[in-house]
């Protein structure tokens, strides 16, 4: 080894460490590189395996993609005429998510503003910890709360015949996505340089004027990203909506209608669909659809966040 090397410095360094240590280090670095690219492999793997199970149904003559996307007739177990249309579920996901965002966005952004601009350092720490704990509550517990607490409240105050409906799911999802919106929104506000604030204060602006005229415009991409990540969480949420929205497959006409979302549909029927049947494959196809929706939303949010960093 030492005789081969041309540089004396290199020879000294190599002599100081045994060959196995160098080989071990090399192996470990290869392992680290492999782990680094594993995330890509996992994402591709998820798409591949879900798509693989769904793929055979695409070639089936009785199945058409346009019917899948644009028909609201979901009769997967019908004896004579099986129909797989998920439009009603898309509408369900959309309505619950939209309601959740209407409720969560003002509170999320408002909370982020309060934490970032108004309160003192102690309160700030406390509030951030509470938000973190709020984000940690498991979705099945939220679902359970929707099923037991919220549904009773809804029946009591609105007079709806059943308490598990769009309103219930929307409130639960709002409570679940608020912590994400708060923490990402707070990051976005923190990313606005302090010189912006100082310039505003030097001109005699109050804090509210500063927020309205300077901080919100400056942080708008980051805040939008926060909202998008909240949307992604709401769209992808399974257990909470499974338990809190009821199971009616139809397009909702009011807040008190029961609906079924794309995620809840998979969770509710996958256990009963025979492996390899069209029904089973259509459920996987729904999974592909969900994967693509959240992929696009997350990508958009990432571009927004990166937009600020570049500036």
């Amino acid at each position: 080894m030492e005789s081969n090397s041309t540089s004396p410095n290199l020879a000294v360094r190599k002599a100081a460490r045994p060959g196995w240590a160098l080989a071990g280090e090399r192996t470990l670095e290869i392992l680290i590189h492999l782990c680094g690219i594993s995330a890509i492999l996992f994402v591709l793997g998820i798409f591949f395996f879900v798509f693989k199970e769904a793929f055979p149904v695409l070639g089936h003559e009785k199945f058409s993609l346009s019917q899948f996307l644009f028909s609201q007739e979901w009769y997967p177990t019908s004896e004579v005429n099986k129909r797989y249309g998920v439009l009603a579920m898309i509408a369900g996901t959309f309505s619950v998510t939209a309601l959740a965002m209407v409720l969560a966005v003002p509170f999320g952004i408002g909370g982020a503003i309060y934490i970032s601009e108004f309160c003192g350092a102690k309160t700030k720490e406390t509030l951030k910890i509470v938000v973190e704990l709020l984000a940690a509550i498991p979705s099945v517990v939220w679902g359970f709360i929707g099923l037991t607490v919220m549904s009773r409240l809804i029946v009591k105050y609105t007079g709806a015949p059943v308490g598990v409906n769009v309103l219930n799911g929307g409130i639960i999802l709002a409570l679940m996505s608020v912590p994400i919106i708060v923490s990402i929104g707070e990051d976005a506000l923190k990313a606005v340089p302090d010189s912006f604030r100082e310039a505003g204060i030097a001109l005699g602006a109050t804090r509210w004027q500063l927020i309205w005229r300077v901080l919100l415009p400056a942080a708008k991409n980051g805040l939008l990203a926060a909202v998008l990540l909240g949307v992604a969480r709401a769209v992808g949420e399974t257990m909470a909506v499974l338990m809190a929205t009821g199971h009616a497959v139809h397009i909702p006409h009011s807040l008190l209608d029961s609906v079924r979302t794309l995620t809840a549909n998979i969770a509710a029927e996958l256990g009963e669909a025979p492996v390899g049947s069209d029904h089973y494959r259509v459920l996987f196809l729904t999974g592909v659809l969900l994967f693509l929706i959240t992929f696009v939303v997350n990508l958009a949010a990432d571009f927004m966040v990166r937009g600020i960093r570049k500036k």
Partner: protein
Amino acid sequence: MTPPDANVFSETPLVRRKRREEALAKWIFCAMSALMILPLVLIIGYLFERAWPSLSLGFLLEVPTRGMRAGGVWPAFVGTIYLVFLSLAVSAPIGILAAVYLNEYARDNWLNRLINLAVINLAGVPSIVHALFGLGAFVYAARFGYSIISASLTLAIMTLPVIIASTREALASVPRSFREACWNVGATRWQTIRSVVLPNAISGILTGVILQVSRAAGETAPIMFTGAVFFKAVQKGDLFPYSLHDQCMALSMHLYTLSTQVPDVQESIPFATAVVLLGSVLLVNAAAIALRVYLRSRKKW
């Protein structure tokens, strides 16, 4: 024109309006934050109140009896521990090494931008899609069947982004000058990582691992179709009731089943199950937060 004797610093109507708006805005945002937190307190309080009749140490240690209408949650609790630790054993090494790669080795090129994008997307994939993936990949393609292995591998992949993100943050907070000092005495990249970067970041990494435990413990959808079952007969006090190829019960799954599938269950039992699940998750989380606060307070740089 102001009269010469008037104080030029006195409040004009404009200033008064501005102050009023400021106070109003502050109160509105404060109320919003309070409304965000209030549900947490109310809900936890309510759950506790309803669960009270069933809550005891016995509830945790008993096995369910009479078709889950009585008894405790021991098999589910142990099952959750199995799932969490197996998934941790897989995802912690991969996640930590991946974070080491991203923070210490990666340059800003297309491959690493792609990896970052993949991590973000992995975090955003809905849990039910992870379940479908676990079913297709581990249960059928890898022939693990419905088992603890399949379920914990699915959980591992799902919680990977949590650990990557927190480890990266911990590594990034080690000042660059530490690394430069080590390189300057002739250490290689890996020697620097092992003897300088990792020891200084270990507390942050640990926090990430703890957070991952709480995340994995609460998930239901990914294990529902890969290895968790409604019921599994387990002896009372059995510490190792499952083998890796068995299916197991899990707290989250148990709560779902109890509240939706089992008729005539005594009312306080699902509430008590929810409290046990919520309590374990929040305790683990609080531990992570406490550790982080403590370590940050004694950080020397």
